[in-house]
C-alpha cells in the first residue's frame, strides 16, 4: 500500500477589506461581541432605567396644581440652584395604615393565588411532559391559546360566569340550589388571578419536568419506592427550579395586579395596584403614586434577590 502525498490545502482566507475594518475597530475597542452586548444594555437603559429614575424623582416631589402636577426638584432662586427633596410621601406610606394594609393584603392575595396556581398547574405540567410527542404540542398550544384573546376581555368574560344570574348560578338553579354570591368577593379575585396566570406557572414547570430522565423514576421504583414516595423524593426536588420560576412569574405580577381586583373584586378587596390607581387618577397625586410604586419595587425585589441567592447557594453545594 502506498501513501500518496496529498497537497496541503491552505486554510480559506477571509475577505481582505472586511479584515482591515475589523482590525481598525478592534483597536478602538469595538468588537462583534461588544456590539451584541451593547444593544440590550442600551435598550434597558433607555426604556427601563431612565423611566425608573424619573419615577423616583417624582416620588421625591410634592403635589401641586398645574402642569406637571408636581413640584420641580431643581429650582433657581436668586442665582442659586436649589435641590428640594420631599420625603413626606415615603413617611406617609408608613404612617398611614391604608398603605401598609394594602401591601400586606396584596402579598397575602398574591401568595395564596400562587399556591393555588401551583397546585392546579403542577399536575397539568406533569401530564403534558409525560404525554406522547403528538399530544404534547397540542396540549402546549392549548395552554398558550388564551393569550390570543385580550386579557381584559377574558377577565370580563369571567364576570359572565360568576355574576348573580351568570352561567354558574343558572346551572345551579337547574338543581334548585340558591344562587351563590361570587362577584365582588376575594374568591372572584383568586379565580381571576389563577385563571390568568396559570400558563406562566405551567410553562416553566413543563420545561423542567420534560427534561427529567424517565429512568430516574424507574430507578426509584426499582429500589422499592411506591409512586407517591418517588414523587416526594425524586420528582418534586428535581422540579424545584421550575416551581420557583413559575411561582415568581405568578407572584410578582399578581402583587401589583390592578385590572383583576377592580373588575372582579369588591370594595373590601384591598390591593396596592388599586391604591396606586386611585392616587394617580382620582387624587392626581403623582408624587404619592410614584412613592407607592417605588416601595412596591422594594417589596418585590428584595425577596426575589434573597431567593436567588439561596438558590445559587444550593446549586453550588
Amino acid at each position, binding site marked *: 500500500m502506498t501513501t500518496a502525498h496529498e497537497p496541503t490545502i491552505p486554510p480559506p482566507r477571509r475577505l481582505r477589506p472586511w479584515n482591515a475594518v475589523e482590525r481598525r475597530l478592534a483597536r478602538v475597542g469595538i468588537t462583534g461581541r461588544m456590539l451584541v452586548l451593547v444593544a440590550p444594555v442600551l435598550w434597558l437603559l433607555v426604556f427601563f432605567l431612565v423611566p425608573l429614575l424619573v419615577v423616583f424623582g417624582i416620588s421625591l416631589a410634592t403635589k401641586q396644581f398645574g402642569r406637571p402636577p408636581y413640584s420641580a426638584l431643581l429650582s433657581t432662586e436668586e442665582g442659586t440652584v436649589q435641590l428640594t427633596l420631599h420625603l413626606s410621601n415615603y413617611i406617609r406610606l408608613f404612617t398611614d395604615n391604608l398603605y401598609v394594609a394594602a401591601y400586606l393584603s396584596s402579598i397575602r392575595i398574591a401568595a395564596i393565588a400562587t399556591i393555588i396556581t401551583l397546585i392546579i398547574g403542577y399536575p397539568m405540567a406533569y401530564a403534558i411532559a409525560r404525554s406522547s410527542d403528538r399530544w404534547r404540542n397540542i396540549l402546549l398550544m392549548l395552554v398558550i391559546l388564551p393569550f390570543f384573546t385580550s386579557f381584559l376581555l377574558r377577565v370580563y368574560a369571567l364576570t359572565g360566569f360568576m355574576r348573580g344570574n351568570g352561567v354558574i348560578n343558572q346551572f345551579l338553579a337547574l338543581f334548585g340550589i340558591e344562587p351563590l354570591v361570587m362577584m365582588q368577593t376575594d374568591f372572584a379575585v383568586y379565580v381571576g388571578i389563577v385563571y390568568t396566570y396559570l400558563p406562566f406557572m405551567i410553562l416553566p414547570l413543563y420545561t423542567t419536568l420534560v427534561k427529567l430522565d424517565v*429512568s430516574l423514576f424507574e430507578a426509584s421504583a*426499582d429500589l422499592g*419506592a411506591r409512586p407517591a414516595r418517588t414523587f416526594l423524593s425524586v420528582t418534586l426536588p428535581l422540579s424545584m427550579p421550575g416551581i420557583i420560576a413559575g411561582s415568581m412569574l405568578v407572584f410578582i405580577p399578581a402583587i401589583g395586579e390592578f385590572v383583576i381586583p377592580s373588575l372582579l373584586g369588591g370594595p373590601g378587596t384591598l390591593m396596592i395596584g388599586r391604591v396606586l390607581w386611585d392616587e394617580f387618577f382620582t387624587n392626581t397625586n403623582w408624587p404619592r403614586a410614584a412613592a407607592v410604586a417605588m416601595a412596591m419595587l422594594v417589596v418585590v425585589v428584595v425577596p426575589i434577590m434573597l431567593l436567588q441567592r439561596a438558590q445559587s447557594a444550593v446549586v453550588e453545594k
Partner: protein
Amino acid sequence: MAKKPQLAVDTRPWRDPKAKPFVRIRNVTKKFGDVTAVNDVSLDIYKSELFCLLGGSGSGKSTLLRMLAGFEQPTSGTIEIDGQDMTHVEPYNRPVNMMFQSYALFPHMNVEQNIAYGLKRDHMPKAEIAARVAELLALVKLQDYGKRKPHQLSGGQRQRVALARALAKRPKLLLLDEPLGALDKKLREETQFELVKIQESLGVTFIVVTHDQEEAMTLATRIGVMNQGEIAMIGEPTDIYEFPNSKFVANFIGSANMVEGVVTEDEPDHVRIRSAELGCDIYVGHGVDCAPDQILWWAIRPEKMHVSRDKPEGQFGANVTKGMVEDIAYLGDMSLYQVALDSGKRVRVSQTNSIRGNPDAITWDEVVYVSWADNAGSVLTV
C-alpha cells in the same frame, strides 16, 4: 490474582437436567402496537449465573430485561423468579434490582444518599443503613467519595455508585443494562473483571444486556444471542463461538468465512461437500444431519485456516484451495490476510506473528494455499 472461581468452571447447573432454574421465562411475547419486540421467548437462568443477553439494537434484549424488572408487562407468557410468578408484580415489589445504562443516579442526592435510597424504602434502622452503605462503598472502592454529588464523579466512579446502589438491597437477581457501555475501552476492560469478581464473591444472579460480543464472552457463564425478538442460540461462550447453530450466530459472533456447498457424500462418520465458491471439496470429519445433494452452508473462523506458499498434503483430496493475497492487515499479535480465491470469493485467514519481525512473511500478491483441518468448520443448515 484471586483464587480461581469455583462457580463458573466447576458448577454448570444448566448441564444438569434435574436442576431447578432460578428465573423462568415462559413463552414471553411483547408487542408495542404492531411491532413485536420480543417474540415467544423461553429461557431458564440458574442461580449464581452471569447470563448475558447479546444482540444488536432492536433485537429485543432490553425489552426482555425491562420485563424482568417490571417496567414493561408481557403481552403474553409468564416470568417466574425463584419459584414465584412475577409477571404482573409491580417493580417496587420485586426482589430484583437494576443497574441502568445511563446509571440513573439521583442528581440531587450525594453518593451515600443514592446508595441508601433503597434501604430507606425498607425502613431499615439508621445505624444499619450507615453500616451497609460503608460496606458497599468499600466494595466498589469509593470510601472517600460518599459526600460527593454524582456530577462531581467521573464516568467510571458513577458506574460503581450505580452498581453499589443496585446491590444495596441484596437482590436475588441483578439486571444490568449495558453496564460498561459508557466507559472508555481501557476502563471497560478493567471493570469487566471487577464485575465478575463482585458477582462471584456475592453469588448474586446477574443478567447482563450487551451489544458487545467481547464483553459477553468475558463476563458470561452463558450467552443468549437474540435476533429480531427471538433467541437465536443459548450456550456457553465456547459453544456460541465454536459451534454456532445458524448462519446468523456464526456471522454475529466474531468473524467467519461462509460458503455455500452441495453434499456429495453423506456417511455416518464423515461428510463431503462440494463448494464451487471455494474451488475444492470440504471434508468434514464427523456425521452431519443432512441428505445427499442438499445445499447447505459451511462456516470457518479466520484463525482455523492456514496460509502457506507450498501446497500442503490435503486430506482425502479436500480442504486445500488456492488464491492470491489481496490485502494484509498487520495487527501486531497477528496478521489478517485477505485471500482472493480463483472463484472470486474472498476469505480471511489470520496467522499468529510468532516470529519477531519475520523477513520471510507472506506478502501482497503472492499465490498461496489455504488449508484447514477436517473438524475446523461448522456445517450449517439454517
